[in-house]
């Protein structure tokens, strides 16, 4: 009996507490830098596309919402001919970002993507590509990947065998 009265009193005192509600359209939500929202494709510092069309994001996507087609330009550099994300399927898990070897695909702190027409939720490459380097400024995949770090040559480490010539038949 006493506990009933006590809980009634406690609930009554909640009247004078601070409200927890965020009055959304007027009052914006604080989104943290790592918040997983709208997906973008970033560019390298020279303004070129970072995406090399490796399909790893599409393979990692658990709901198969990413669709792309890789092609090559006249210099033999790969880029996606089209890159399509169906945001009505996307669950914003961020696996595509983790899978991306070139930091091209990134999730941004933005969730205001409401549309009246469901088809408008399918974003094409023009909608996804932004004019920014995103979370990794100064990173250019082609300048970093496959380059010697200048520490030691191949096969000179402590427990390392010299590299094998894979084109030779000699053991």
């Amino acid at each position, binding site marked *: 009996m006493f506990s009933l009265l006590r809980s009634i009193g406690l609930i009554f005192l909640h009247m004078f507490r601070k409200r*927890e509600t965020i009055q959304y359209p007027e009052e914006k939500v604080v989104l943290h830098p790592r918040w997983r929202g709208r997906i973008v494709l970033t560019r390298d510092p020279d303004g070129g596309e970072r995406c090399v069309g490796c399909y790893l994001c599409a393979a990692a996507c658990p709901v198969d919402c990413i669709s792309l087609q890789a092609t090559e330009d006249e210099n033999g550099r790969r880029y996606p001919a089209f890159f399509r994300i169906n945001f009505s399927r996307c669950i914003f898990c961020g696996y595509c970002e983790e899978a991306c070897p070139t930091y091209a695909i990134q999730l941004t702190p933005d969730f205001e993507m409401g549309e009246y027409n469901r088809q408008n939720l399918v974003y094409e490459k023009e909608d996804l590509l932004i004019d920014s380097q995103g979370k990794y400024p100064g990173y250019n995949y082609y300048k970093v990947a496959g380059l010697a770090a200048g520490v030691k040559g191949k096969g000179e480490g402590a427990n390392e065998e010299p590299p094998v010539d894979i084109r030779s038949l000699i053991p």
Partner: protein
Amino acid sequence: MNEILKYTLMIVIILFTLTTIAAWLIWLERRMLAVWQDRYGPNRAGPFGLFIVVADTIKLFFKEDWIPPFAEKTVFVFAPAIVAASVLLSFVVVPFAPDILVADLDIGLLFFLAMSSLGVYSIVLGGWASNNKYSLLGALRGASQMISYEVFMGLSLMGVVMLSGSFRLMDIVMAQKDFWFVVTQPVAFVLFLTAGIAETHRLPFDIPEAESELVAGFHSEYSGMKFGMFFIGEYLGIILISAMVVTIFFGGWLGPVLPPVVWFTLKTFVFIIFFILLRASLPRPRYDQLMEYGWKIILPIALLNLLVTGAFTLLKN
């Protein structure tokens, strides 16, 4: 002729006011619940979100008014009307002010008890006619709840009747000129309030409805305005029980300075808000627990209260 016109006008005004207040109680309840849960509640449509009621009503009217093919059609349609009608009939005897009263019956209190008890028929019939296991369970619980609270509800009021010497609500109010009956009959007040909550099937005694156990209990199969009738009946029931608590234990319209109607409304709203506070704070007992409390604890207390009051009245004479 003039008399008839006067009463007709009074009935129309009271009916209109009550149904309007009952509708806006939806807003009040949602706002107050939000206040006690550190939220704001509906505050978008119109000033303070008041127009949410209009939107809700329009929505209810445009919902598909579906009668399940397996239901007993006549009873199914008839049941929601009983709850609203029986509660509205009880208001006939409620004295809102010395001159605002539809009928000053000699047996006003008994009339109120009889009419408010009829409301349980809508639950039992509605649940039964739905021909659905959850609805039937709800109806069953409604009946079991009714037999446990109805007894001590009437008994708790008999002490007041003893002190005032009349079943007329007008006399009961006038007998509280010096001090309210809540001072002389505090036990009866607590018992009647408990029974009143059970009577209106409000939380914590919303056992026949029990959303978390029985989908929506007796009105699982109801939609559209038929569901709306159950809803309006429930809110009218809150107003009725609050008004009766005020009339019987808190001096009705009596009060200084302000006009009687204002006093009555103020006191009634305090209890309506208390009803909502109870909903915000208390969990629901099992229905066997309610029956056990009703028969083994509260009924003896009510009888004891009656005995003590009778003894005092005898000694005083």
